[in-house]
């Protein structure tokens, strides 16, 4: 029963992707949106042309590094600070507002600042980390706070210390929420890295997008967008799988 609905939802997922690509192809092939909208097949053949592999793989490598760094550092900071906020009640309001204010600054506005402060090669990682930080802070905090009053009561009556409550109750209880955060953070880290590269990083998908746009290289622009979307979707999907495993165990 469950597997039937699972395969139905997978089928609908594929149908959605197929419709999207089909629509893209039709609009491109009949030039419904003008010359700047190439058909899907044109973009893909541009992308897989061996002579361009070097170009794409150098850009992809830079973006993946920035994204990986941002993901790891931003995620670790978000997680750690959320744990600190839950352990030290007095810190919590301060940490909550600080992270909300930091998050409220648009990435596009803070990017030039990072470039001045950190230089063009570090800015993508830093922006990516910032994006991931907030998502992990919120998802970890929400998860840690979600332990039920009855569970907390049992732990208190049994004489559990705050640390024991944290690692025996709150953290395991927060795991599904943390994994959801990790999944949502994946696309956010890609966006952060690309916006960071946009403002003059030496390489990366963001740089490729900007230069393709400025030089009116339409197929290059679209190919890069497809690549960026693909890494986002792959990271998102991977964590989606892990999430499903964890949720099954935690109901």
């Amino acid at each position, binding site marked *: 029963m469950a597997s039937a609905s699972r395969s139905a939802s997978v089928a609908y997922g594929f149908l959605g992707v197929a419709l999207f690509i089909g629509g893209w192809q039709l609009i491109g092939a009949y030039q419904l949106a003008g010359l700047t909208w190439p058909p899907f097949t044109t973009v893909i053949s541009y992308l897989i042309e061996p002579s361009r592999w070097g170009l794409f793989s150098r850009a992809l490598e830079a973006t993946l590094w920035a994204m990986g760094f941002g993901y790891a550092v931003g995620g670790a900071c978000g997680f750690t600070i959320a744990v600190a906020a839950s352990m030290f009640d007095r810190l919590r309001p301060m940490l909550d507002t600080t992270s909300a204010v930091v998050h409220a600054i648009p990435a596009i506005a803070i990017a030039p600042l990072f470039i001045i402060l950190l230089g063009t090669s570090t800015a993508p990682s830093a922006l990516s980390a910032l994006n991931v930080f907030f998502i992990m802070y919120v998802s970890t905090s929400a998860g840690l706070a979600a332990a*039920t009053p*009855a*569970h907390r*009561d*049992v*732990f*208190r*009556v*049994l*004489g*559990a210390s705050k640390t*024991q409550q944290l690692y*025996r*109750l709150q953290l*395991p*209880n927060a*795991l599904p929420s943390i994994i959801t955060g990790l999944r949502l953070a994946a696309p956010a880290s890609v966006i952060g890295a690309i916006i960071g590269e946009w403002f003059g990083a030496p390489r990366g998908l963001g740089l490729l997008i900007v230069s393709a746009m400025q030089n009116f290289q339409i197929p290059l622009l679209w190919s890069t967008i497809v690549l960026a979307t693909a890494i986002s979707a792959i990271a998102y999907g991977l964590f989606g799988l892990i999430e499903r495993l964890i949720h099954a*165990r*935690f*109901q």
Partner: protein
Amino acid sequence: MQRAGTSIRLNHVSKSFSIGRKTVAAVDAVDLTIEAGEFVSFIGPSGCGKSTILRMVAALEAPTAGQVTIGDLPPSEMAQHHRLGVAFQDHALLPWLTVRKNVELPFRIASRPVNDQQIDQLLNLVGLSEFDRARPKQLSGGMRQRASIARALILQPDVLLLDEPFGALDQVTRRHLNIELQNIWARNAITTILITHSVDEALFLSDRVVVLSGRPGRVVKVLPVPFGRPRSPSVMRDPLFHQLADDLTESLEGYVGSEEP
């Protein structure tokens, strides 16, 4: 039967809560001593402060006036020394752990080596031996409550605190668990407080039944239960049992309708 545990003293205990600008008196000047190894039930209309009394003994709430002591110690110290066992209507088992791991939890919290033999024995006693690897969601309501009571008992606490542990179960299961609890308790009489809505449950299990008035809860009657131990379910067919049940129901009825929203 061996009497164990520690006495509990409620010394003119009152508790009020502030909700916004209003103050609600939940418990009013309750004065009562529960002897070591005694089983005492509290019954009373809902919202009369039964859970509040239990929570003060469990160190989950502090009295507004008066003191609670367990032996010579304040409840918070008893909790810190892992001397309290507790089970609520909400079984509060950890959903990501198996039954066995849930019952092990108090050992881990007390940083004591897990005594597997003791866990086997207790799981056997509560009829969960075959379900020790199951997760709570795979169990029936009655089995979850059994696991929850096993968790409360595993460290052989000085005091056992039960807040309507069978309140959400159907009548048949509830009766079963009453009989089982009575058997378990008869082996090792731990000082126990049971909060319940059921007059029959209170009479069958307790040495004394305390009747509370409507909010704020005051003690209006303390009924010693004259049946010996161990008790067999046939006690419940005794005419005296019915007589006492009627008396208790009557003393409760005076407060029906006194409950405010």
